């Protein structure tokens, strides 16, 4: 269960690690947009080359990227195959049994597959090079203007960081409970329906009771430290917009121009 570490951040010293999380967020959103727009061979080539380059720059082993892609991989292949078989326009290349594989189908299927892959890679790049805290902080900074519409951005970002803080805790607890019950002979595969229900209850009930207890403690701890829902929040580490971030934004525009030009 520990392999699913939330927000698998890999520490490093690369340029991607040092960028301001806000510019990284911008960057990935912008890139997602680009990925949805790519529809010519040129677009695809430039974006793939560029992606390979930044992955290289990040200095993170390909293993971690694969870990992020794996859950989606077969789904993407399935979608692509479906597309290849469904599109019956363009030049017929060859036929399998009664299905005709056409050039257009192949192209559209490949494009769909690449879009999925690129999307996952970009998301992985962000979470691998940025700590969860930094991302939450950046999102709340970027959404600040929403405060004007009475959306409590600070409260939401506080709750998000609280959630992230407790996911590993509950994961550990669930694991302990599963093992504890297994050592007492619980088996989900066997037994009647009632036994299964009891089995699940024996894991969920302690988890929930623990949660309610923890909530009390955390709430009390917050209160004693003067937590206010409506106060302005200060942070231990301020985000600083540096020259390299401006450079990154400029580069994005340049890159967009390049794609637009072709």
């Amino acid at each position, binding site marked *: 269960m520990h392999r699913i570490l939330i927000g698998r951040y890999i520490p490093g010293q690369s340029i991607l690690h040092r960028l301001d999380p806000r510019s990284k967020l911008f960057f990935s959103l912008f890139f997602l947009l680009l990925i949805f727009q790519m529809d010519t061979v040129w677009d695809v080539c430039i974006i793939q080359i560029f992606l390979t380059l930044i992955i290289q720059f990040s200095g993170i082993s390909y293993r971690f990227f694969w870990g992020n892609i794996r859950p*989606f991989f077969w789904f993407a292949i399935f979608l692509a195959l479906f597309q290849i078989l469904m599109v019956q326009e363009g030049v017929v290349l060859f036929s399998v049994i009664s299905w005709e594989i056409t050039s257009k189908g192949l192209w559209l299927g490949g494009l769909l597959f690449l879009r999925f892959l690129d999307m996952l890679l970009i998301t992985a790049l962000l979470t691998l090079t940025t700590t969860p805290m930094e991302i939450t902080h950046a999102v709340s900074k970027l959404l600040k203007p929403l405060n004007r519409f009475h959306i409590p951005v600070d409260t939401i970002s506080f709750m*998000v960081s609280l*959630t992230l803080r407790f996911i590993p805790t509950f994961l550990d607890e669930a694991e302990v409970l599963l093992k504890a019950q297994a050592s007492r002979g619980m088996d989900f595969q066997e037994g009647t329906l009632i036994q299964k229900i009891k089995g699940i209850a024996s894991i969920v009930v302690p988890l929930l009771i623990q949660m309610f207890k923890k*909530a009390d403690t955390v709430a009390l701890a917050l209160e004693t430290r003067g937590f206010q829902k409506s106060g302005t929040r200060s942070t231990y580490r301020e985000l600083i917009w540096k020259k390299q971030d401006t450079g990154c934004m400029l580069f994005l525009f340049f890159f967009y121009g390049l794609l637009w030009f072709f």
Partner: protein
Amino acid sequence: MEHTKILQTRAYVLCALFAALIAVGALIKIPVPVVPFTLQFLFTNLAGILLGKKFGMIAVGLYVTVGLIGFPVFAGGGGISYVLHPTFGYLIGFILGAWIAGYITERSEKPTYRTWLFAGLMNLLMIYTCGMIYYYCIANFYLDSPVGIVALIWFAFVLAIPGDILLCIISVFLTKRLLPITQKRGTDK
């Protein structure tokens, strides 16, 4: 005055922790034969029933927000691009479903087994309606890979529903056991 303030802080903390629990629920797979399922629906349903409509919805909404920001808490990863994933509709359904479950439980004066079962089933109905409509739209208009309505109902509903109905029944029993604890500790509604 002071007391309500503490209760309010506690309610928000409770939402955040419940969201964490939902994320954990999505990761725990119970290896039941035929349909292995996750505890995700169980927790979103309990969020609605135990926390009430407002905080239940906030808790589930928070879980979805955390996933959308980019943390891999959904069954298949995370990130803003998940919005275009065909199964995102189920997540919207989770939010609305938690609200409905909370609404039904809050409305009745003395909730019984029947109320909770009804709340759970309505929650399920909401999730599947949202999920299937979304799947249909994404598959047909975005992915350009049309799916038939019959195939959709077969794959997205008939094959998945038995496990969820089981979870519905389990959540009724769990509510019975957990309600004394939550009531003793009291959420302000």
